[in-house]
């Protein structure tokens, strides 16, 4: 592992950097940076994807519909939306699933982390570290690596397909369990492929740990779930690197959403103080390294990453370690398969308020519902990871631009886009084209 030294800024004219359409992120966003007389004036990460009103059209729908409706928010992380919804509804109804269902949910989440993380590592983020325009250009010179990534992703797809019924927007998850239980042999048939993929994930960690990383370190507040024994997916308390330690039901007392005029996504802030915070793989990793499997810890030690990670450009390594962890846990869950007592528990009918946070690939995903006595949703509130990270991304860009004003426009723009992709922002579903315009704004 080496670090790239960035030239110190020289005298720099005024300019504006505009990335009108961010590529290799999930959805529609733009970046505007204004520099005047050598001084950074403004950084805005603008999400112009239209508001989608999911919380409004959940009102009046049956609580049992929430997992399938909210899954449509994202084609990359539908399982996360389903998991937050089912846990919130089960909390409102005061029910708990058995160990067999719990394990199948963890297995499903493993599949989604693999799908999402491998896509991001190989197709979206790795090209930045080599200076390629996209993964197709990278594939010509890194064929073996790309072939490895594609096969790993397919293994993740298969886990989600078997358990969820299909790879994108699964249809087999319900409040209380699953509509249909899988058979043990459906998974055991793919054990050899999962073990190959676990080895491939170890090679991925070694590969990305050898990249050159730009320097960037700030004083973040990392926020993630923490479970009593397991690396967090859907259970535990919400903790932070600055001492927060709360039950999920206390989330609204400690976090608040804020409307900024230039973006369609709400910003989320810590309360009190209104400060930005950081969710996602690095937050999970820094707050839960002692919950990783021994194999993942060994791999982290071998690559020099068994430590608190504070440079967001290292997130690609943490993501790769989480892919290894997910394959490792998937193999274990299949080998120790526990047959659930029933596909789904019977749900009582009662009014209530339910909240749950789970760990989507990109970080904490919070759901809150009020349910009436007919089992209908009265109100819904959903706080996705990208809105929680949006201000932190902007703060990263401020520091990054201020330290790199001597770079050419092209190099600085590329560096800023790479920094945004550190967070794998999920604005809705992926785009793959880019129009960049950079122009001087001195005196204008």
């Amino acid at each position, binding site marked *: 592992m080496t670090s790239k030294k960035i030239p110190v800024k020289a005298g720099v004219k005024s300019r504006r950097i505009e990335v009108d359409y961010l590529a290799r992120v999930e959805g529609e966003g733009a970046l505007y940076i204004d520099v005047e007389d050598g001084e950074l004036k403004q950084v805005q990460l603008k999400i112009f994807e239209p508001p989608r009103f999911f919380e409004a059209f959940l009102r009046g729908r049956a609580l049992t519909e929430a997992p399938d409706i909210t899954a449509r928010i994202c084609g990359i992380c539908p399982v996360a939306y389903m998991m937050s919804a089912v846990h919130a509804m089960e909390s409102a109804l005061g029910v708990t699933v058995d160990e067999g269902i719990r394990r199948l949910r963890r297995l499903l989440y493993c599949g989604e982390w693999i799908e999402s993380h491998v896509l991001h590592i190989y197709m979206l983020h790795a090209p930045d570290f080599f200076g390629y325009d996209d993964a*197709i250009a990278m594939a010509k010179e890194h064929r073996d690596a790309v072939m490895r990534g*594609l096969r790993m992703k397919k293994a993740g797809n298969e886990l989600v397909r078997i358990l969820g019924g299909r790879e994108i927007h699964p249809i087999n998850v319900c409040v209380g369990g699953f509509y249909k239980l899988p058979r043990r042999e459906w998974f055991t048939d793919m054990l050899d492929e999962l073990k190959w993929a676990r080895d491939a994930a170890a090679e991925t960690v070694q590969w990305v740990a050898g990249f050159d990383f730009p320097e960037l370190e700030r004083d973040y507040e990392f926020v993630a779930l923490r479970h009593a024994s397991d690396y967090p997916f859907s259970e535990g308390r919400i903790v932070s690197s600055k001492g927060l330690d709360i039950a999920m039901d206390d989330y609204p007392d400690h976090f608040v959403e804020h409307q900024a005029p230039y973006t369609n996504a709400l910003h989320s802030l810590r309360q009190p103080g209104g400060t930005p915070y950081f969710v996602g793989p690095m937050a999970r990793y820094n707050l839960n390294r002692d919950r990783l499997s021994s194999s993942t810890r060994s791999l982290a030690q071998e690559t020099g990453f068994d430590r608190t990670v504070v440079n967001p450009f290292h997130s690609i390594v943490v993501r790769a370690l989480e892919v290894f962890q997910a394959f490792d846990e998937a193999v274990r869950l299949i080998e120790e398969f526990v047959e659930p007592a029933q596909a789904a528990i019977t749900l009582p009918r009662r009014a209530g308020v339910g909240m749950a946070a789970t760990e989507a690939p990109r970080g904490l995903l919070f759901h809150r519902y009020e349910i009436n006595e007919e089992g209908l949703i009265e109100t819904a509130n959903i706080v996705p990871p990208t809105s929680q990270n949006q201000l932190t991304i902007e703060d990263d860009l401020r520091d990054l631009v201020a330290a790199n004003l001597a770079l050419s426009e092209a190099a600085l723009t590329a560096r800023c886009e790479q920094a945004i992709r550190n967070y794998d922002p999920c604005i809705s579903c992926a785009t793959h084209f880019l129009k960049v315009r950079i122009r001087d704004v001195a005196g204008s």
Partner: protein
Amino acid sequence: MGLDTRILGVGNSYRGDDGVGPWVIAALRQRLPRASLAVSDGEMSNLLAEFGGCQALLLIDALDAATAGVDAGTVVRLDGRDAKLEATGLRASTHAMGVAEAVSMAKALDCLPGDFSVIGIAGTCFENREGLSRPVRDAAAALVEELMRELEHA
């Protein structure tokens, strides 16, 4: 085209005309159960796995009629190796990395089948619903007959 040609229908049957590829495969499957037939949702890693497993491949997918500049129901045959697929309006995937990107990636990885062709059927109705629009359904039915003739005389 012979019975050893793999025919792959790409699309989403719950998105109107986007389901024309799987519709053609379902029709062929009833009449040619021994043929090598498959469907795909168009996700890149799944498509590449299909590309790697055969010597001859015919991919059937929906086109966006407006992007392609043709009427609904128009059937376009393309040489998959040479065609500028992105310009044709192929719209197989609900994901960003779909057929066009998968073909570009397969070329970069040198794993595109030696004999690879694409049939695009132009549609206009891609909303969330099941079933094909009338012009697309008629074109798909005619294509099935044409493919049957080609396969029977191979």
